[in-house]
């Protein structure tokens, strides 16, 4: 019996899975591509995502209420602190930009007066 035939009658689960995949990949992909390309699929997955998000939001809000009751900083509190640091960094950068501009103008002025 040839190797291929031997493999095709194997009871090795992994080999069976591989053969199944090889034989059907194209057909499965084409069918899924067609199904998922439809507007219905898009609408349905959008609704599913919206439901999951509603559940997630509810869990987050409950957790926030619980932590606030316990006088423990929430995720939002820590994020707000982080936002202040990021904002401060931006202000320092803006000052750096202005200093760079002043330095450049001074250099240009010096070069002009040296001529």
């Amino acid at each position: 019996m040839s190797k291929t035939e031997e493999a095709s009658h194997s009871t090795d689960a992994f080999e069976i899975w591989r053969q199944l995949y090889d034989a059907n990949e194209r057909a499965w992909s084409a069918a899924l591509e067609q199904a998922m390309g439809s507007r219905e699929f898009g609408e349905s997955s959008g609704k599913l995502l919206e439901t999951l998000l509603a559940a997630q939001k509810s869990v987050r809000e409950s957790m926030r209420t619980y932590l606030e009751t316990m006088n423990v900083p929430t995720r939002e509190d820590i994020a707000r602190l982080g936002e202040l640091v990021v904002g401060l960094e931006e202000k320092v950068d803006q000052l750096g930009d202005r200093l760079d501009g002043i330095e450049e103008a001074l250099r240009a002025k010096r070069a002009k007066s040296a001529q």
Partner: protein
Amino acid sequence: MTTSTRATWPDAESLWSSNDRALEMARAVLGAADAPVGLTPKELIWRKNKARLYRYARPGPATHRTPVFLILPLINRAYILDLRPGASFVEFLVGEGFDVFLIDWGTPGDEDRALDITTLVTRYLPRAVTAIRKATGKDQVTALGYCIGGALATCFAALHPEVTRNLVLLTAPLDFADAGQFGRMTARGIFPVDRLTETFPTVPGQVPDIGSKLLNPIANYMGTYQRLWQKLGDPDFDVQGWQAMYRWVNDSVPFAGAAFRQWIVEFYQENRLARDMLEMDGRPVRLASIRCPVLNIAASRDQIAPRATTSIVTNRVGSRDASEILIEGGHVGIVVGRTASQNLWPRVGAWLSEHD
């Protein structure tokens, strides 16, 4: 030859060999998270919030004048362009004599909920370029953007033509009039982008990741393992290479809420860049404002950035020198795949040398 229709039980030897291969497969998958990646030596030269700008170490001075500035996508780890020795676009460019810089956007946290694409293009990129100019003493850079990074590079080049010597785009989606499956998934009225960004300050990396994988679910969810199973039987199979790629594919990054919203609404749904309606910080962002040489690289089997989304740039920019290369392969494959080192990298290297 006799043909048996009966299933044959494997003998002990093949059974154990199959079990060994299954264990090897589990080891390859489970060990992928620790695969060494991004090994080209580099130095941190600028940072802002989570973003880091690196300069890659060179054995000697650069032989090309214009520094190459790599702008990476927001949803993937930056090491895709420096995957591992021998499979690294960065390593190739350094070897070709370029002074290479890369911006790694890092991992946004909840405090970055208001960080949008406009801020990245108008506050981060100009300062990163200033840092490159200070480090090199050169006035201009070549901006090379990959995927979403290409869209950012395009906006930057349109707003700052004075510092952009060249623009190179790697599979960069810019026109969303026909954005394929992604466009349908994110269509207005279908995709709950507002609720998503209200619920999550940073959109979990799994959201865009699942979206990408659903473009070809069988190949992405099953084919990966099927191919691994098959290759493990080959004594020359490079397990570490597979692990590095597997690590990258599954190492998704959260998307800052405001940036995600802007990407979906202004780029995908309203197609503002292609329709000349995009504004950043009150300034119009127009493709026609780009006057530098442009090289646009598209992948023939790209489902993430289909050709219809990438081809607009060569016709619409204000440059006289705008060309396109179509490479056989997919969105990621053309950058790090087997043929990248023989096809894409030398062609980009040659173009950059010509436009130095």
